[in-house]
């Protein structure tokens, strides 16, 4: 993110004159606010920042950010952002997408964007429903979900977005929620700081078509028992009194009581450990299930890997080193010519 040395922006400076048109009570408002605050705090230059979105409720996002922005077509924001970043590496590029946009119609572009590792931040607003089209199940809806298109329950086994991202060898994956602004802000900052493609899955409540989908993770009364907030170098603990912890039993995570174990026995979070990250993404139990493992939030994984845009520019620099600056006449002439008198 580029910083400005002139005046400090406020969140308000990043708002546009457009009325925000999400339904009252939508989780998107909170994400927008945190994004504006995060960028203002980071002291960005508005003109060097670009938001690209696809189609869906969340994809209206760019209209509300006073930066450059494109509300593109369904599923393709990651591909558009790739071309933009490839040619304008100095820009701060953010992709706003949803569970349908990123994981269904745009699934192909998402996995390829992740493996290529452009320095782009992807915010995946997951509400487990198609909101804009008024309530069909999405690729993250739990099996059996009754929606307009699945009156007898959905048959699809749902995607686990972060496990998918690990499979695509993403270099930064994290999860946050609309109802925890402080956490979200920290994650947005971490994603922004990461050099490479960052994927943040944000649990976002659609209060019209899928109200309460994540309530068990976000409601004060159930949140402590069903969530784990990952902190670098810290043991995995949870519960009202942080009385529970996660211990590795071989390759299997298990819940233990802290009264029986010391913190040293617990799983210590290390976001650079791919093996651990894989297991964390698999902590994906249906919370209604008995003995369900808590759902992790935070930065699961980060890895330093070359940026596609740098490598691309590197080849150009190398070509110029070997051949010199391109000479058009030489290009047009080619290798062999002959003269006709």
């Amino acid at each position, binding site marked *: 993110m580029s910083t400005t040395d002139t005046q400090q922006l406020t969140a308000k400076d990043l708002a546009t004159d457009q009325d925000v048109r999400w339904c009252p009570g939508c989780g998107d408002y909170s994400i927008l606010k945190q994004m504006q605050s995060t960028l203002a705090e980071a002291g960005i230059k508005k003109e060097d920042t670009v938001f690209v979105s696809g189609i869906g409720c969340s994809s209206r996002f760019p209209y509300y950010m006073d930066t450059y922005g494109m509300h593109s077509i369904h599923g393709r924001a990651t591909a558009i952002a790739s071309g933009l970043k*490839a*040619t304008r590496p100095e820009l701060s590029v953010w992709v706003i997408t949803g569970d349908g946009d990123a994981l269904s119609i745009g699934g192909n572009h998402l996995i*390829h964007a992740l493996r290529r590792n452009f320095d782009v931040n992807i915010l995946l607003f997951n509400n487990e429903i198609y909101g804009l089209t008024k309530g069909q199940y999405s690729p993250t809806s739990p099996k059996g979900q009754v929606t307009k298109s699945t009156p007898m329950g959905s048959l699809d086994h749902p995607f686990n977005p972060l496990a998918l991202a690990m499979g695509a060898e993403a270099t930064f994956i994290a999860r946050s929620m609309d109802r925890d602004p402080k956490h979200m802000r920290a994650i947005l900052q971490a994603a922004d700081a990461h050099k490479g493609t960052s994927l943040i899955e944000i649990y976002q409540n659609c209060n019209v078509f899928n109200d309460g989908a994540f309530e068990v993770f976000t409601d004060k009364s159930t949140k402590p028992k069903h969530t784990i907030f990952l902190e670098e170098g810290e043991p995995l603990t949870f519960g009202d009194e942080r009385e529970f912890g996660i211990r590795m039993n071989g390759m299997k995570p298990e819940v233990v009581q802290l009264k029986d174990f010391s913190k040293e026995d617990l799983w210590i979070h290390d976001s650079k450990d791919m093996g651990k990250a894989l297991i964390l993404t698999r902590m994906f139990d249906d919370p209604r299930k008995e003995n369900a493992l808590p759902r992790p939030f935070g930065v699961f994984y980060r890895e330093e890997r070359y940026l596609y845009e740098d490598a*691309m520019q590197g080849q150009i620099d190398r070509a110029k080193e070997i051949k010199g600056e391109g000479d058009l006449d030489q290009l047009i002439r080619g290798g062999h010519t002959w003269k006709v008198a």
Partner: protein
Amino acid sequence: MSSVTEKKDDVIILFAGDSGDGMQLTGSLFTNTSAQFGNDISTFPNFPAEIRAPQGTVAGVSGFKLRFASIDIFTPGDEVEVMVAMNAAALKANLDQLKVGGTIIANTDGFDKKNLRLAKYDEEANPLLDESLDKFRVIEMDVTKITRQTLVDSGLGTKDIDRCKNMYVLGFLYWMYNRSLANTEEFIKEKFAKKPEIRDANLKVLKAGYYFGDTNETFTTRYEVKSANLPSGEYRSIMGNQGTALGLIVAAQKAGLNLFYGSYPITPASDILHELARHKEFGVKTFQAEDEIAAICASIGASYGGTLGVTASSGPGIALKGEAIGLAVMLELPLLIINVQRGGPSTGLPTKTEQSDLLQAMHGRNGEAPLVVIAPCSPSDCFETAIEAARISLEHMVPVMYLSDGFIANGSEPWRFPSAADIKPIHPRFANAEKELENGVYYPYRRDENLVRSWATPGMKDLQHRVGGLEKDFETGNVSYDPENHERMVRIRKEKVEKIAEHIPEQAIGQGEEKGELLILGWGSTYGAIRTAVRELITEGHAVSHAQVRYLSPFPKNLGELLQRFDQVLIPEINDGQLIQLINARYDKRALPLNKIKGMPFTSREIKEKAKELLAK
């Protein structure tokens, strides 16, 4: 021994063999030698879609047609004079192209029982032994055997030795047409610099073929095709896809922009990607995307960022790109979409040519989504047309569809190339904050007198704005569902494209009088065949003219008036009649069709015959 030399103006050779026999290379080498000698040339490679089609079968035949002449030529020609048939299938697949009295150079080893069976000749029938080839002159050579004998001491294995077979034939043809081996020898030395045994083997076999003609008493006649009377200047040989690629690089440089090329491999467009990837010293960024949609979307992203964004494909890929093309229409950003057309529908005929995507280019999107359509007409014209496409796109903030096809993409011809300094600069419509901000507000959809909006790219201070696929207010660019505004915007986008007619050349008559009995109106790769036919018709005293349309949307502003000056208008197309639909719908003139949908270009004779039929009425 002595041989007579006979002069010829115009020779057509067809190299035909198994797709593994190296016929494309052999043809290209003969082409280069003839081009450098100064002949006018025109080539037509014709190969199967499969990389290794079943060996020995008709389906697996790969051909390279080469025409070289001391006169002006515009097509690879109609009837073949000399055919190299490396096996029975090659003969069977191409015999109908050989003119009566023509020569067949047959590799007898390719006519053994197995090859005859694979080529589906009747039991016991061998065309080399029966009278079926009596109309032709047959030169039999046991190429495999002689090649093996020549290289018996080379230390190479049989597989490597057999790969040199094509050089024997090439050497013989060089003898037959009085050509120097130097150019090909140079090529071999360069290509196999790191494999001296292979290099030496190829050189030896090439010479052996040449000496075979020299020493064998059966060959008493050699031919000479003098250099052509081409306009003086410096020439190179150019293939269509290569011309397109070079044109794109030049266009970007002339506009002061970087070039971004997003594409997904597809026949016959991939060679543009290959060519561009070799020229990174011009700052060219090539991006092989995960699919056709990503390829165009990445290019749109690049365009949004202020780069010349280009994507290319062939028909099926263009179909996939349709929605994104519509987005580019809506965003009013520069974007080049190259379609190297092939036979359709669906996967169709991947390696064969067709002009059947014109209506797709015009209408293949949802909504009212007009764009510019432009078509090159020959391999060298690809260069100029690509620059023209980029110029229109950048100066008018509009996506441009560029319609090449397999015939010109893979064909080659001599090109009197221009100097870079003679190519006009291109002026992108970048926004200017000082001029365009009104009370601190930027209106991204305000337009100039040509209805062109300005290009504000990320990084430009105070010009932050949002664009998108939703309908926008005609001035602010904000999302608008207003009924009046939508109709207004639909008309503005259309009018913007129509106004480009003020900035392109008027349609010219390429050949013939400005008015007359018959106008043959073509577009794209039919150029050479029409030009040849019209030249002959004029020589025979007919009042026929030829016009080739480069600008298909918008049409040149004088086109309607031009059509009226002729009693009849004939439109030959390698499709079932697409330009003719546009012309007949738009102008008060009933044009007549001539269609060929065989995956093959027109011969000039086909056009000439149709023209004569119309003239006789």
